[in-house]
């Protein structure tokens, strides 16, 4: 019983990792995109569990909120919107499937054999930095020959949690990337709206619903009135 409790993290990792791997294969293998999306959701949830096991609670929560809550809804929404019906005898694989399997096998073997214990930086046993705020101080050092140089030192103080530590790091050390990320999201939002907007072309006007044509006509009138 003691060995079971001692090896519990390993057991959880084995089970959750196996589920993640199996459902990732099913994402690729399923015919129906809705089934693929639901297995992708299962993979995301398993990966969130793995994040929490590695002391990244905030990233795990963000993973569930953004991936499972946001991106999956987007995917399911689009799948339902375009409503693709696959015929049972329709081809699922593209023309490159042989090369694809070859690349997969090569990469899989490479990735799983390349990983060797002991070739990375030694593990740092003290995990307190994962929940600590960094404070940077500059110290003036008087050298023996009379010159003065400055030295930057980072001091870590236990902040009580991973979320607070990540938040502090985002707002202090990584402020510029954070702002660029917000700008990126704005650009992506505008881009998605502009690309996804429906434009009434000459061919579509015959099949467009009446209310849409009406709206286009009123918009035209408003434009003419504005320019006049």
């Amino acid at each position: 019983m003691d060995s079971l409790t001692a090896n519990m993290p390993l057991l959880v990792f084995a089970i959750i990792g196996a589920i993640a791997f199996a459902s990732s294969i099913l994402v690729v293998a399923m015919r129906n995109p809705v089934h693929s999306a639901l297995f992708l959701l299962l993979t995301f949830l398993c990966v969130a569990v793995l994040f929490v096991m590695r002391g990244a609670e905030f990233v795990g929560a963000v993973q569930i909120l953004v991936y499972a809550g946001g991106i999956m809804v987007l995917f399911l929404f689009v799948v339902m919107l375009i409503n693709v019906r696959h015929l049972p005898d329709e081809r699922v694989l593209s023309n490159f499937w042989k090369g694809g399997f070859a690349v997969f096998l090569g990469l899989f073997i490479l990735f799983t054999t390349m990983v060797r214990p002991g070739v990375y930086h030694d593990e740092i046993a003290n995990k307190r930095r994962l929940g600590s705020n960094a404070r940077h101080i500059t110290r003036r050092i008087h050298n023996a020959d009379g010159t003065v140089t400055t030295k930057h030192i980072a001091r870590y103080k236990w902040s009580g949690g991973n979320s607070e530590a990540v938040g502090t790091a985002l707002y202090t050390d990584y402020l510029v990337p954070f702002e660029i990320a917000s700008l990126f999201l704005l650009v992506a939002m505008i881009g998605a709206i502009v690309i996804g907007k429906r434009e009434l072309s000459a061919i579509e006007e015959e099949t467009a619903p009446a209310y849409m044509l009406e709206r286009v006509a009123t918009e035209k009138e408003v434009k003419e009135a504005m320019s006049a």
Partner: protein
Amino acid sequence: MPSTEAYLMLSGALFSVGLLGVIIRRNMITVLMSIELMLNAVNINFVAFSHRLAGLEGQVFTIFVITVAAGEAAVGLAIIIQLYRLKSTVNVDEARELNG
């Protein structure tokens, strides 16, 4: 505790499955899902090394990767909707206008 190497192996496996999906599937929505799978595999690597080196840098970059993935999914799905309006299909093989 599971070792960092176990995490790296799982991440490599997920990444190669994602690449397989990108190459072999014809349905463009599934291709986009496979790209998300690959991004997630990279995130596992970041978090594993963040824990190993006891630094927050990996977790911060994971958040940026998730941000980029969200934007990429939104724009990619908008492109898929436009392609569906143009071609009435979401198969990758059908979109070959730029094929010289």
